[in-house]
């Protein structure tokens, strides 16, 4: 790996780690930070589920329980979903106070984009997997992501 790529990655890691671990509110004396922490956790869960899904996809493909065409479709749709979740995650993590009506509308809009990409990942990627066990395994990740999306139902 090139030194510049290494250092860029490290800087990203340090900045993100510092920002997250120092700025994330731990206190909830007035109770206002609880929804924000809940939202942040749900956004992290989406990211974590996609991460686990990618690793599972690789493992299934390596053991020939996923065809190259199926893996390609999943990869393309996962990339789209990851981008939508990333945009949503960034906005959620930028919240410092409970969202007002305008911010809620913005979040709902971003969330609907996430929902659409996850639905597409499911219908266009997961449901087309021929191996039943592989399909079942992938469906569990979709369920996890949908459970995380449901946490934001109070926004609507």
């Amino acid at each position, binding site marked *: 790996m090139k030194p*510049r790529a290494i*250092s860029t990655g490290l800087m990203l890691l*340090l*900045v*993100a*780690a510092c920002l997250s671990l*120092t700025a994330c509110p731990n206190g909830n004396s007035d109770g206002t930070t609880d929804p924000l922490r809940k939202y942040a956790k749900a956004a992290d869960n989406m*990211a974590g589920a996609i991460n686990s899904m990618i690793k599972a996809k*690789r493992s299934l493909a390596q053991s020939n329980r996923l065809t190259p065409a199926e893996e390609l479709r999943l990869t393309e749709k996962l990339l789209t979903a990851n981008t939508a979740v990333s945009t949503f995650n960034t906005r959620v993590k930028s919240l410092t106070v409970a969202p007002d009506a305008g911010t809620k509308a913005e979040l709902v809009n971003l969330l609907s984009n996430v929902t659409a990409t996850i639905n597409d990942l499911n219908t266009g990627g997961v449901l087309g997997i021929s191996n039943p066990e592989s399909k079942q395994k992938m469906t569990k990740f979709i369920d996890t992501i949908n459970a995380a999306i449901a946490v934001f139902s109070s926004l609507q």
Partner: protein
Amino acid sequence: MDWMTIIVNLLPLVPAPGAGQATVLAQLALELIGRIKSQTGMTTEQIFERAGLTLEENKRMLLEDLERLQGSHNPPSS
């Protein structure tokens, strides 16, 4: 001002570091991760997730996979 704040404020000022500086930063990152692990009991994966790095890692892995798969699906023309 605490050390974390100092690091956060200094990092944007580092102009594309060379290999030597990258090594120093790598040691700093490893030390920081080690400290967070020992103080919080979190795993490296949990620290990355908490720091919002999972999505970046996801993107990197997916682009790697896409390159591999598109390469295998589109054999070089003769």
